[in-house]
């Protein structure tokens, strides 16, 4: 079901997640401020691309259960915090220019960088940290989540209609974006008390790109493809970005507004079984052990 490349990538990445946290807790790395998001039901606009009878269609809204509460960073990871990891050779340099302010969210971050940081922070604090899944992120974002459905019926006779609609939607979004990275808190908190979600720094999630098909009654079929070389970055729209990219800007064929900046925040994953269970599930699915 998955290509060799993807399986290899998964193996490398899973190594990051499953690494043991044997390193001694370091006093100079303070625990980040956290917000607890309580359990509940989540009306989740599924991520990825969906085909209905081979024609691109809006993703379905799935009622999913978030069975446990989880802790998520109140703010995005800062330049200063990330630099400590770089200084210890545990994280790659962020791409962004050297004049970043230490107390601003770090940007110019790839999925790899964010994963490195999670591993480093886990080792330093003896607490397991990881990127949120897209389900968790959108649930935590609440009203800050931006629905990326086009609200248009698919038209098999003219594939250009959805394409043009999407182009216009992204063009509108792009014209509203602000450019400079803002200090923490500048975009305000959502109803959960989490700051700066869907500001101008997109946040990496652990979720892979998936292509799925839906049947006539709107049910997702189990014959999808996942590509974990591409991950979701969440923000003013859902962006699908190759894992090693630090700056997603582009023109040419890649039509649509790219994320203005790429950064991240982490969730704490020390609740028994939960987070690791997810990872194990995912790992199993990568190996085709359903």
């Amino acid at each position, binding site marked *: *079901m998955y290509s060799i490349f993807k399986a290899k990538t998964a193996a490398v990445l899973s190594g990051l997640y499953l690494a043991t946290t044997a390193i001694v807790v370091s006093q100079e790395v303070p625990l980040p401020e956290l917000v607890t998001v309580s359990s509940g039901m989540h009306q989740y606009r599924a991520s990825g691309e969906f085909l209905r009878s*081979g024609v691109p269609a809006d993703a379905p809204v799935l009622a999913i259960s978030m069975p446990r509460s989880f802790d998520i960073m109140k703010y995005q990871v800062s330049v200063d915090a990330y630099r400590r990891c770089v200084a210890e050779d545990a994280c790659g340099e962020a791409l962004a220019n050297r004049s970043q302010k230490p107390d601003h969210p770090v940007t110019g971050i790839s999925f790899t960088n964010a994963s490195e940081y999670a591993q480093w922070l886990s080792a330093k604090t003896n607490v397991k940290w990881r990127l949120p899944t897209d389900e968790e992120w959108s649930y935590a974002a609440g009203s800050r989540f931006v629905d990326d459905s086009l609200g248009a019926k698919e038209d098999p006779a003219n594939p250009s209609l959805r394409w043009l609609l999407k*182009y216009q939607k992204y063009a509108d979004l792009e014209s509203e974006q602000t*450019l400079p990275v803002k200090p923490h808190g500048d975009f305000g908190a959502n109803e959960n008390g989490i700051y700066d979600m869907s500001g101008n720094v997109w946040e990496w999630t652990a979720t892979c790109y998936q292509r799925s098909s839906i049947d006539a009654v709107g049910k997702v079929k189990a014959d999808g493809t996942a590509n974990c070389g591409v991950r979701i970055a969440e923000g003013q729209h859902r962006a699908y970005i190759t894992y090693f990219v630090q700056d997603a800007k582009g*023109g*040419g064929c890649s039509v649509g*507004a790219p994320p203005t900046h790429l950064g991240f925040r982490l969730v704490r994953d020390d609740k028994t079984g939960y987070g690791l269970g997810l990872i194990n599930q995912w790992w199993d699915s990568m190996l085709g052990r359903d």
Partner: protein
Amino acid sequence: MITRRTALMGAAFVAAAPAIAVQKASADSESMTPVGAKVDLANMPRRKVELVAPPFVHAHEQVSSQPPAIVEFEMTIIEKEVEVDDDGTMMQGMTFDGSIPGPLMVVHEGDYVELTLINPPENLMQHNIDFHAATGGLGGGALTLVNPGEKTVLRFKATRPGTFVYHCAPGGPMIPWHVVSGMSGAIMILPRDGLKNEKNEPVSYDKVYYIGENDFYIPKDENGDYMRFEDAGSSYGDTVEVMNGLIPTHVVFNGKAGALTGDNALKSKVGETVLIVHSQANRDTRPHLIGGHGDLVWETGKFNNPPERDLETWFIRGGSAGAALYTFRQPGVYAYVNHNLIEAVNLGATAHVVVEGEWDNDLMAQVVAPTAYGDMHISKKALP
């Protein structure tokens, strides 16, 4: 008229680069005042044209219904700071009529172009204009050198039909600097009876897109941030250093990366015929319409030569303008790029055309939508 700022500029230049002193040598307006017998054009009809900022063009006839005329244009040179990408990178720009590129002028073969060129007193520098379409006098550059606070009127006869670059050429190292700061544009001289295909049959267009491509050379500071300058003069030294490396920091259409995408994407519809005029005053480029073609392409831009048919990519020599005629046959988003894809995607040379209409399944169809095909099909050769 020498303003205080101009005087300061002069001093700054000498201090920064003594070579600037040669600036006077190549374009000396006084010595080039023409002394030939006057041509009597008193009975020539005249008309005035209001220029329009690119990518659009002023209204014009394709087949001329009038005898040759003197066509009057007016352009004001504006020095101003401009944004060259969405990251807020700023450049001290120099412009013909406020836009980068300058406006596209359209006349017919046999017409006289009469341009009033204004250099307002707020400007710091001398400017002029060199029309590649004009004959003699350094393309007009020798007759048009104007100081801040001066204006001049140049007349030249449009003898050769085609698309041609015009640019500022005020002498010495000022020439490339003014050009890469934005001072170029194009003129299209149509045959009086309009455009012809390779069989000499008449062809026409519904609209013109004028794409002026620019290469910019913005210096960076020690932190790797693009530098911003107080005025053009203070940007000169650092900019020349980047220019002399011949690697542009930006290659853009219409003065800015993203100037012709998103909300500013060009618009068309299936069945519509567009003429894309592409100019590059300084550097070679290779336009390509992703998902389309050049139905008829005057690669060198000169309409007395038959156009080439069905091109995928065409070559615009630095210092020239070419023209491509294309009828859209399929709806969707087209990307019009400089097909050095590094320049298109990373440096900015991309425009989009949003085309509405009915999809033609005969031209293209997705026979099988992307679906998983299972491990059993993975070739053994793909294994490491």
